[in-house]
């Protein structure tokens, strides 16, 4: 009863003020995000290649058809799928284990938690650079560690398979802290005793863990997974600085491909069409995420 009265009070009193409060945000987002978005949409229906200005013209869905037809783009799409799914999968599994670990009350846990967050604080360009040095084929520490256990010297970033593995590893490394943080927040809504008993008591309790804890975490896992899916899909900096999409496009994902199409191929129309397709995918994923958020809120009404 009371909330409704106060809402009405609010509405009557301050609607104009609300718009005043909203306007700076809407103006900035309108100018710097919405306007470029519309611009991209418009550009995607144009034939516009910077190096051939004479051919500029409206071209309908040509760019979109090209986007679906070009084999290079199909490869980039498949590699995006491989990169994103492996990275998110690893992050969810390791993040769940990490969250269970950090959720335990233990002397020294605060220290562990601080160090655990380290990779998240390393700017992405720096992370990519450091790992490039780690994976250096001649003097890198990765090959040195391999050598000590009798492994072969690997030309990490120079060969297709190992380069893909390397960029996935680095993405997992940098994304794990945030994933763990999200899952930890979810874990903290479950009574700690339940979880700890399951971890300490072994076999019988492990079943309890699977039956009690995991089901409660399911929405949270899917939510964090979706969020991470979107973030991973967009890992431009790491791939661009580590491999530039190479060797021979082996680590090219859609975002790096768009960048190359625009700034090395100067085909702005095609790049715009690809951007629109990517944005559509992301909006779809965001809608899924939003639905999950709402369902979760429905479950815990405050």
């Amino acid at each position: 009863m009371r909330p409704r009265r106060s809402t009405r009070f609010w509405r009557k009193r301050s609607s104009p003020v609300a718009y005043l409060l909203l306007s700076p945000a809407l103006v900035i987002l309108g100018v710097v995000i919405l306007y470029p978005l519309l611009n991209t949409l418009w550009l995607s229906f144009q034939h516009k290649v910077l190096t051939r200005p004479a051919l500029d013209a409206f071209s309908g869905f040509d760019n979109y058809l090209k986007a679906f037809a070009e084999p290079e783009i199909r490869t980039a799409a498949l590699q995006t799928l491989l990169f994103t799914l492996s990275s998110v999968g690893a992050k969810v599994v390791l993040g769940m284990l990490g969250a269970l670990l950090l959720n335990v009350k233990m002397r020294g846990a605060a220290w562990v938690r601080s160090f655990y967050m380290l990779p998240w604080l390393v700017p992405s360009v720096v992370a990519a650079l450091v790992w490039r040095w780690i994976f250096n084929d001649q003097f890198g520490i990765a090959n040195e560690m391999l050598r000590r256990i009798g492994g072969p010297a690997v030309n990490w970033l120079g060969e297709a398979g190992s380069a893909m593995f390397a960029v996935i590893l680095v993405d997992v490394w940098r994304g794990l802290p945030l994933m763990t943080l999200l899952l930890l927040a979810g874990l903290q809504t479950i009574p700690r005793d339940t979880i700890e008993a399951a971890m300490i008591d072994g076999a019988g309790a492990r079943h309890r863990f699977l039956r009690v804890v995991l089901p409660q975490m399911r929405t949270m896992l899917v939510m964090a997974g979706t969020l991470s899916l979107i973030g991973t899909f967009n890992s431009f900096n790491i791939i661009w600085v580590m491999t530039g999409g190479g060797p021979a496009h082996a680590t090219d994902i859609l975002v790096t491909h768009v960048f190359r199409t625009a700034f090395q191929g100067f085909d702005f129309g095609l790049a715009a069409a690809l951007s629109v397709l990517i944005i559509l995918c992301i909006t779809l994923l965001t809608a899924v995420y939003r639905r999950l958020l709402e369902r979760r809120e429905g479950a815990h009404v405050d």
Partner: protein
Amino acid sequence: MTKGLTRKAKRRWFALFWWASALLFLAFLAFPVVWMLSTSLKPTTEIFQMPPTWIPEQATTAAYETLYEKGHFLRYLGNSLLIALATTGISVLVASMAGYAFARVTFVGRKAVLFGILAAQMVPGVLFLLPIFALIKELGLLNTHQGLILANVAFALPFSIWMMYGFYRHIPRDIEEAAWVDGCGVLRTFFKVVMPMARPGLVSCAIFSFLTAWDEFVFALALTTSDELKTLPVGLFSFIGQFGIEWNYLMAGAVLVTLPAMAFFLLFQKHVLSGFAAGAVKG
């Protein structure tokens, strides 16, 4: 296996297991940072030494000194700080105002706008590089810090608005209504009463904006061309060309780019963790 053990013994085994797993995680997460620090303290001869050393045998700060002399590092640092702090200030204020309005008022299309903002947060900025470049050029802000700050604010805003929206929704309305009844205007109530109550939210929002601006690379690379305006990540990237394979210089630069972000985090650690979880989970 552990059936016959007492509760206490089980606890002890569990602690051992816990520490073993924790150290395993930390080894993976921390070793690149250790390696970065270690390389930055080596002389050039030692970085090409086989087998490599984890702890520098002839530790030296030569790489840092060279960066200081040749690399314009202080200038880049100043630029990065200026841009990150300006971005933080503007986006915290703007997001706080917008988040409050979204939390308190219903209007037609509110849900759609909120969804649009959420989607905007998810879209990678790189895709907008071209039109934003054109826009900044039209505004006459190409090769200025203002243009870069504007772009950074726009990238930090969506998540910040969502975070603040989440915070204000959990602040009871009674207090502000009492202030109105006492004759305090809506705007004054917001700035004097409501905003201070959301301080944890403001701090998380500030951290997020700061880290976003600190991490930004592609736009800084595209929107500024003169050396005086470069930010740290761009400066570091240009070192790759400048210092080639002298990894000790590159790693010294990497350390210097990372340190301010770490300092910022350590200062506000408590707020970051709770705030981020709230922003992402409660929505």
